[in-house]
């Protein structure tokens, strides 16, 4: 199951009335939104949305019913177990040869402030300002020890850029920690604190 689908499941299951609606679905052969709403004292729209969302996820089947009134749907359970199974490794950003060979350096006039650790050759946080006047905002990024070390060895603005792999090596950071370094690179690039070497840009 991918993360987004799991999040939808979790969101539905976290509703206060979720267990009560599932109790109706388990004990009734099929139920309509108005029946469920009347039984649980919910607004019909609330019950309708919930059941519809479950149907979209494939947990319920729905059948259109035509009686004297205008048509409506009957919902029935399609499965009696809900299993949320997420492989977290699928969201791990594995360093690729391309991402590690990215040549980077600090960007000139980036409006970032770096806090240096008192006891170690490392940077503890980066504070970035963005916007003008009343819109001016401050964002503080606390760094992990490897990230702080990496930033300490990042080439200065207007100097020869180095590849991410070279900086990792220079800073003496274990290669297995590359994903968190790449995450920082991505973040700081977004905030215009670092830049890629011009020749490496697409």
């Amino acid at each position, binding site marked *: 199951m991918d993360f987004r689908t799991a999040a939808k499941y979790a969101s539905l299951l976290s509703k206060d009335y979720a267990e009560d609606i599932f109790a109706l679905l388990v004990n009734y052969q099929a139920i309509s939104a108005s029946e469920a709403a009347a039984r649980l004292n919910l607004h019909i729209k609330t019950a309708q949305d919930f059941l519809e969302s479950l149907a979209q996820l494939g947990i319920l089947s729905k059948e259109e019913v035509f009686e004297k009134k205008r048509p409506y749907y009957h919902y029935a359970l399609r499965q009696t177990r809900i299993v949320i199974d997420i492989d977290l490794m699928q969201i791990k950003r594995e360093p690729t040869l391309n991402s590690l060979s990215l040549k980077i350096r600090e960007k000139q006039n980036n409006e970032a402030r*770096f806090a240096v650790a*008192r*006891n170690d050759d490392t940077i503890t946080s980066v504070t970035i300002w963005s916007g003008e006047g009343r819109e001016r905002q401050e964002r503080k990024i606390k760094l992990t020890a490897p990230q702080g070390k990496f930033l*300490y060895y990042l*080439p*200065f603005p*207007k100097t020869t850029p180095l590849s991410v792999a070279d900086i990792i090596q220079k800073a003496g950071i274990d290669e297995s920690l590359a994903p968190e370094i790449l995450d920082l690179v991505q973040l700081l690039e977004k905030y215009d604190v670092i830049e890629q070497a011009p020749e490496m840009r697409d």
Partner: protein
Amino acid sequence: MTLVRKLRRDQDIRGIIPFLSILPIFGLASLFYGIRAGFIAIGIWSLLFLLVYLYVFVRTRNFAHLVICADAAFLGAVFLVFSPQFGAGSFPEIEFKAVYAAGILFFGILIFALVITRRLKWRGREILELAGEPVDEIGNGYTSRPRPVGKMDYTLEQIHGFARFAARNLIALPYITSKNITLVPIKMGEEYFRLLGLSGDYRDATWVNFDEDGEVSVHIAQKDYLEYREPLAFDQLCVSLGQVFIGFFELYKKGEGARFIDRMDDLRIPIFS
């Protein structure tokens, strides 16, 4: 030979404010409470200076500061001990004047000699000038990040001794933590603020850091970078500052630290700059 300066002319007058402050203090105290109160104000001011300079001595072990301490103690004693009788008729005014004149003359000449021989000069400006000397490339590139400049071989005893030497000769003020010795060069006029902790965190100043593994890193404060006439290539400037201290340490290791002081003297930077 004309020296080409990389730094702008020093126009910082903050350094003389503490000394000059005695004049309005004396004047106001005399105006409101009489001449005796004016002298007492000078005495109290002198004792405050004594405390400040005693602290500078404890922090740096620069013996020239003890002379200022002695001068401040003398002035404090003269004005606080004798001034209650001064002008009241019970103390012979001529004797007071004689003691005062002799003391002022003695300490005046001594302090003048110390100033002229640069024994009371903080060398931050010389350090920045030396760092800028080999950098010809213009290019800015300022960042508030420190720059690792290399690895050196030293023992902790050696680097502690070096830090003491730098402090004693007012080249840089050391800040010692469990893993690092950070040397902060201080320019004339900044010493009170830095020593009394009024200049903020020393990590925001210009510094050269020596860690326990031999790594040397450098940070240049933006305020100091703007002291250069031109926007020198910042990366090169940081490396150069590191090299200045590495070279200085090598001389110190050979017992030739005095040569580095000669090098700074040769720059002929004005005494109060």
